[in-house]
């Protein structure tokens, strides 16, 4: 059976150049980077080289990069670390309703610790209103944490404008760049970013490695304690193979970015157009153009996401959905909800995210298989036909969470 992987926003395969390099660090250059001997020094060299590769992708300095176990840890470190270290300056945090749970749940935790958080609403395209951001800033605002690209609907947020505001007001800006890092250009200076999170497994490096960019001079409390690795910001034996793999994948991503953006945008638009054309009562979630290359999110009404995913899976297609069943909660994706999309439509959302291994044939295959599946599921659905009109009304009266 043909297998088509269209879930690159969830994770990516390790690219072969990286896998090869990492394996060498498993069995040959396996030293502890803190050791004095040759094994240790070789490992250290790999780590510092990777730090440069990653810094250079976002125009940071190598000493501003701190390796973590992934995006979630980097987000937590950035947010908890800055607000705890800068508690004397204020207790207010601004973020958005569409952040990843690594940011949202961290903010919820901090609310329990006496901090106050404003969750900015978003428009139909999952974008924030700059005026609302400005209005939300208080005397005691110490941190703004806003993602660069939304993982569910692919919207690119206006970080440069946000950075301008944060800088003027002297507020730290943290950017969750897990979905944009290595895919679209980032310049921490031009964008006035103070802290930035990234994760290796989204850009063809192994899972279990990520990093935090921390602008020089910003105080940060560590999340946990131990050895003096990563200048005490992040103790624990360095994950040398992961780090060198992440470094190489970042460098390659930078080199290939320009070409990949064009290629993936083309494939993405072909997929979007094909779906909207071939499947009645389908809609694009998020913006048509202001979205990550390779990122597609559509809603196919009257059907539910998990069963859609299972049917696609039986045809070899790997995708994801914002339906409640796949989110592990009773409610569908908080992002789609924040965009004002009603529950039923959110349950029928389908995310198809392309990457390095995606081809035009993959797109054609999905466009061939998906309409049949949707038809089959709709034919089972009590919402289709009979209730069509009712349902529409019900849906249009959906209370927005905004």
């Amino acid at each position, binding site marked *: 059976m043909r297998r088509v992987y269209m879930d690159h926003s969830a994770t990516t395969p390790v690219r072969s150049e990286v896998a090869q390099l990492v394996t060498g660090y498993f069995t040959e250059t396996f030293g502890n980077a803190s050791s004095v001997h040759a094994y240790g020094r070789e490992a250290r060299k790999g780590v510092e080289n990777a730090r440069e590769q990653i810094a250079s992708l976002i125009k940071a300095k190598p000493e501003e990069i701190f390796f973590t176990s992934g995006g979630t840890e980097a987000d937590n470190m950035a947010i908890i670390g800055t607000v705890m270290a800068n508690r004397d300056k204020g207790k207010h945090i601004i973020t958005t309703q569409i952040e990843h749970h690594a940011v949202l749940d961290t903010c919820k935790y901090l609310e329990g610790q006496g901090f106050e958080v404003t969750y900015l609403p978003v428009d139909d395209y999952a974008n924030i209103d700059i005026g609302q951001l400005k209005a939300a800033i208080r005397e005691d605002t110490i941190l703004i944490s806003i993602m660069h690209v939304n993982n569910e609907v692919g919207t690119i947020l206006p970080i440069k404008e946000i950075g301008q505001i944060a800088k003027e007001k002297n507020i730290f800006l943290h950017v969750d760049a897990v979905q944009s890092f290595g895919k679209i250009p980032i310049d921490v200076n031009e964008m006035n970013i103070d802290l930035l999170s990234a994760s290796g497994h989204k850009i063809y490096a192994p899972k279990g490695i990520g990093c935090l960019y921390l602008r020089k001079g910003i105080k940060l409390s560590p999340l946990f304690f131990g050895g003096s690795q990563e200048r005490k910001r992040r103790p624990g034996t360095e994950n040398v193979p992961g780090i060198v793999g992440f470094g190489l994948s970042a460098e390659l991503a930078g080199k290939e970015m320009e070409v990949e953006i064009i290629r993936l945008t083309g494939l993405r638009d072909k997929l979007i157009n094909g779906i909207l054309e071939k499947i009645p009562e389908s809609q694009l979630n998020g913006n048509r153009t202001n979205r990550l290359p390779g990122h597609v999110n559509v809603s196919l009404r009257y059907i539910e996401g998990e069963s859609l995913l299972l049917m696609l899976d039986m045809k070899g297609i790997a995708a994801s959905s914002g339906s409640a069943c796949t989110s592990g909660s009773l409610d569908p994706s908080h992002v789609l909800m924040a965009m004002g999309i009603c529950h039923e439509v959110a349950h029928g959302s389908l995310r198809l995210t392309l990457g390095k291994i995606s081809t035009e044939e993959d797109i054609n295959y999905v466009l061939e298989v998906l309409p049949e599946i949707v038809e089959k599921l709709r034919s089972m659905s*009590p919402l289709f036909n009979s209730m069509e009109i009712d349902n529409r009304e019900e849906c249009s009266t959906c209370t927005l969470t905004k």
Partner: protein
Amino acid sequence: MYTDKVMDHFSNPRNVGEIEKASGVGEVGNAKCGDIMRIYLDVEDNIIKDIKFKTFGCGAAIATSSMVTEMVKGKTIDEALEVTNKAVAKALGGLPPAKMHCSNLAADALHKAIEDYKKKLKSDSYN
């Protein structure tokens, strides 16, 4: 995640459809929560002669709907009333814990359809 039996009922669901002049119809769930199951009965002489379902929901919702129709087709109303959600899950070889509550409602839909049938029967007989 799902057993082979669940996947079989999900991918080849039995008794999908509607019954035009159904003896009873039952529906549970709601679209907001991501699950709606509707069951149509054709009852004759207290026996479920035909049964059909339409379901909007996850794999477990579709599979349990399909399974319940198989379990009670040809059975008496009383026998059908003894079928529980748990029994349906068991007949499918089990369901993931997360699905036991949210999507395992097919027997409830069946019972509602039987209730509807009984109510209709009553009102019919009083007419």
